[in-house]
């Protein structure tokens, strides 16, 4: 096919435009990363970076990783992500499977009940009081139990299950397979892409969740990493790290600490990103089009 000059011009402009857009999307995080490994004095002068300034300085990371408060909050976060996601996946999968059986009595009604919760909610205070009555306040479980099933994720899985050909299930039934076995041994192996996608959605959700921590937890020993990070740069107080100052061989500043903490709070997500990528676009296509 012949491409006219206006077509070529369009492609060039379009391509350049999107190269800029992609750069804009990526640069802010890159900047923080570069700042966190740069020489703190040079980094503190301000300006845009593409590469680390001065000698690479990992002192800020060393400080951050060895600071008890941050280390502890990392463990808390890992607990919430691990246990939370496991519970999420178990409950979401069985609920989604059940809801995919439209012909069973009451299923459509329950589906509507759940859809309704996506539109209307009790609100921050009544939910807080309910969480309180469940005695979850000040416990890490308050970051897990009130979020056991996220309706959007469940509907994505449900739609996926709906797409599995009935003949497979029927064949299994005739062979005398019980529903739990059908689900776990037949349907799930077929749904790996969807399952991985939803697992990642939940994991990222828990990793980034700081609102539940702020609302329901007072004990700073139980704070989650994101909340500690936020308190760190909003209050600007890095003095809790000064007691380790004598041990450092290299230079660090409050700013470089903040940058390192930002990176530490987001590096796991970045590492998981290639996996997210691999399964993700499929996930969105399934979820949004059927939405």
């Amino acid at each position: 096919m012949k491409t006219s000059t206006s077509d070529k011009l369009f492609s060039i402009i379009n391509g350049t435009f999107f190269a800029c857009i992609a750069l804009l999307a990526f640069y802010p995080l890159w900047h923080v990363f570069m700042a966190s490994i740069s020489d703190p004095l040079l980094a503190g002068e301000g300006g845009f970076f593409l590469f680390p300034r001065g000698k690479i300085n990992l002192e800020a990371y060393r400080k951050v990783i060895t600071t008890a408060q941050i280390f502890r909050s990392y463990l808390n976060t890992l607990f919430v992500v691990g246990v939370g996601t496991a519970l999420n996946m178990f409950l979401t999968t069985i609920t989604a499977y059940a809801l995919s059986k439209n012909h069973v009595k009451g299923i459509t009604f329950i589906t509507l009940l759940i859809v309704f919760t996506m539109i209307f909610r009790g609100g921050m205070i009544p939910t807080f009081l309910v969480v309180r009555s469940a005695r979850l306040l000040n416990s890490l479980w308050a970051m897990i139990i009130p979020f056991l099933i996220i309706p959007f994720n469940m509907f994505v899985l449900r739609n996926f299950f709906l797409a599995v050909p009935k003949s497979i299930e029927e064949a299994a039934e005739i062979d005398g397979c019980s529903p739990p076995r059908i689900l776990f041994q037949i349907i799930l192996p077929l749904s790996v892409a969807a399952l991985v996608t939803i697992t990642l959605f939940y994991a990222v959700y828990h990793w980034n969740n700081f609102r539940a921590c702020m609302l329901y937890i007072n004990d700073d020993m139980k704070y989650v990493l994101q909340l500690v990070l936020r308190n760190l740069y909003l209050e600007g107080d890095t003095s809790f790290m000064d007691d380790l100052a004598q041990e450092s061989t290299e230079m660090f500043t409050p700013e470089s600490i903040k940058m390192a903490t930002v990176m530490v709070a987001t590096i796991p997500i970045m590492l998981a990103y290639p996996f997210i990528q691999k399964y993700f676009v499929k996930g969105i296509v399934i979820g949004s089009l059927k939405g």
Partner: protein
Amino acid sequence: MQIINMNHIRLSIAKKTFLKNKWIYIFLAPGLCYFIFFHYFPMYGLHIAFKDYNVLSGFIKSPWVGLKHFRTLLNDPMFFRVFRNTLIICFYKLIFGFPLPIVLSLFLNEIRVLAFKRSVQSLIYIPHFISWPVIGGIAYALLSPQWGAIAGLFKFLNVPPINLLISKEYFRGILVVTTLWKTFGWNTIVYLAALTTIDPQLYEAAMIDGAGRLKRIWHISFPGIMPVVVILLLLRVGTILDTGFDQIMSLYNPLVAEVSEIFDTYTYKIGILQWRFSYTTAVGLFKSVIGLVLIVGANSLSRKVYKEGAIW
């Protein structure tokens, strides 16, 4: 002989069906309990907006006070400020944030070099996975007038540095821009996925008829994703008042409270931190009702204008 066999078969089919259904209900039970306890029970708890809730009496025994809290609300100047801020901020986000991904997806779809297209896609939705506290940290790194990226820009332009993060004039802008940055990639990909469902023959026919790229975008791509656009717009309008809590709590400082206090942050401050439960539930209820009105209104509007787009 034959009749007995039929009954036998019918019974065992019935038994199998019941057993199979039994499992479906068992699977549903925990999820249903979760939704009832953590979603419907709080909806019931909303009625404390009409009571003077105190923690000792609980939901049921707290005394009924009717519209007292709503009257307080209407006389509270802080409430109106919060209402105004919420509407303005959400409105700005909608106006600037909604069209952009649509436009981007239409043009991104035109990129022919697949490797480039995929790389762009991968890069633009990274911000979606970044939490607001991290974005807050990034914002400080970029916008701090002394040591941030922007400090270099001020020096270069020889302009006195402004701290965008604590200025009342610019803070709402920062909220909009950061929200845009975080969400445009994900939304663009959603529309891009919708674009892939358009029949390629339409494009071929148009090309044969001599339609250039821009014409093809306007006459085929854009109408092709309208249903998705409308549905997403409706959903956005419905949840519009909910957005911003995480963001504002991550970028907040007292100097900008006046322009950035929204319903949810206000509810947090005087509800959770000051225990004024009933009053803030009234505020929350007010907000939910407005949200409901918005989504019902938008749905009816969409039904009149564009039938296939409405949710109900």
